[in-house]
């Protein structure tokens, strides 16, 4: 049974998460402060941590940084308001995903499943398969319904980066830095254009993307379309 650690100072949210997660088959431990959370994380080595950004004793950002010094499993951030700056900051410092309160239970469970799954996916599989999309990393070929689709080098690099991080939100600046380099940070127009090109090639309907999902003002997320 997968174990999830919840670090949130609001008792109501802790109760809600305990009931929701336990009834979905997870084992749950919860803590109200950053200090207790860090201790429990070290002792239990949970499979996933849900961390609230607004904690009473220290900021969620600092808890996140301390966790990321040694903790490699997924961390899901809870934020009380849609504050993109906070969200981007925590994603850039190692959080895997975020949810804004109030969130829907279905959404929460989907994010947890996706984070746990991508964590188990081996880094060095040569073949990535999502529904009708297949990427052969060794041969550097992409097929949709067994038909080969051609990409430029940059398009391919972007697709691989997204697909390898399936389920995880990648921020604009992270994508720009990884594909184009430090000098391109903030040049969103490049990314938008290339995402549109990728969608035109891999999505059935580029206006209703099923693989490359937009996280408004934050970044993009590749989903397998479960």
């Amino acid at each position: 049974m997968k174990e999830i650690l919840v670090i949130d100072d609001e008792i109501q949210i802790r109760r809600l998460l305990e009931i929701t997660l336990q009834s979905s088959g997870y084992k749950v431990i919860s803590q109200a402060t950053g200090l207790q959370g860090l201790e429990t994380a070290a002792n239990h080595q949970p499979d996933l941590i849900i961390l609230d950004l607004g904690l009473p004793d220290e900021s969620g950002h600092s808890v996140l940084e301390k966790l990321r010094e040694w903790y490699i499993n997924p961390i899901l951030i809870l934020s009380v308001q849609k504050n993109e700056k906070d969200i981007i900051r925590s994603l850039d410092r190692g959080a895997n995903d975020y949810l804004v309160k109030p969130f829907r239970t279905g959404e929460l469970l989907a994010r947890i499943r996706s984070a746990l799954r991508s964590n188990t996916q081996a880094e060095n599989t040569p073949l990535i398969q999502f529904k009708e999309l297949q990427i052969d990393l060794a041969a550097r070929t992409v097929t949709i319904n067994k038909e080969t689709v051609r990409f430029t080098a940059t398009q391919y690099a972007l697709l691989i980066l997204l697909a390898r991080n399936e389920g995880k939100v990648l921020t604009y600046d992270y994508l720009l830095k990884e594909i184009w380099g430090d000098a391109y940070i903030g040049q969103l127009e490049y990314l938008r254009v290339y995402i549109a090109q990728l969608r035109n090639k891999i999505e059935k309907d580029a206006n209703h993307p099923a693989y490359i999902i937009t996280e408004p003002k934050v970044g993009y997320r590749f989903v397998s379309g479960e």
Partner: protein
Amino acid sequence: MQFLLSGLAIGGVSLVAFLFSAYIGQEGVAFILLVTLSVIGMFFDIVPVLVAAVLSALIWDYFFLLPRFNFRVGNTEDKIMLSMYFIIALVSGVLTFKIRQHEMIARTQQEQEKTLVLYDAVLNSLSHEFRTPIAAIIGASDNLIADQPLLSPSDRKDLLSEISKAAIRLNQQVENLLDMSRLESGIIAVKKDWCDISELIYTVTLRLENELKHFELKVDTANNLPLFMLDYGLIEQVLFNLLQNATRYTPEGSSIRISANVTDPGLQLIVTDDGHGFPQGSMQKVFEKFYRLESSGTGGIGLGLSIVKGFVESHRGTVILENQSPRGAKFIIEIPTDKYYA
């Protein structure tokens, strides 16, 4: 400025009277000057009015009162007349000014009263719109906690879904109030970046997926739309509010259409529906804060469209609402902005 204008008025009127002095007697001129003075009193402050009164008395004495072209006054009757003129000029100037002042005070008071009435109405509607879902949550959860054996599983499910609906409604109202207060306090910082409009439209339709299920949605975006320089979050909220209104206030099964076009200054977004449209005379008012159509029932606090207007205007854009023939409403948003063609 006021001194100059009142001086010019008195001087000008005097000049005209002087040119026609063969036809107008000295008493007639006095009356014309007094009328001029009253008019000045209606528009200017007290000091320029008094100066104009003194000026007009001197002009009358010098140019018109016999003997003319000096300040001497001939007989006793004329002396009395000059004193009387002087007094009447001062009194009429001061009186007109005072009347104006009183009018202004009355007007401000009236406006204050109106604001109070509006404030009361807003507070009433707000507390109603917040208390209804709160009442639903408290009532339904009490029922569930009491766990009466007569409560069937389907009743239980209904109560739960009421709680969920009420909470979602509350959340949205809080969000609207927050958006509005951010607009009002001027702390909305428009953070523009390159936006893919098709992607934005899709994000909004996804957020409203459940509501839109009962409608016929058509998205009509030109091929090869450029990227636009916009604040993604604000424009997303604009489109969300327009679409949500359409799903709330048009009959189920209506068709809703979103179209995006490039215009010379920037982006044009159009949302149309084939519902009932808006009553004539309400087309401007619907953008006012807390304004709600009488026909719109419960479920909103009258902020959606004022937020639309505020967010669009923060981009220096415009929103126009039209009724369509034969029926339906049409919102046209025009935003001047930079474009990026890949």
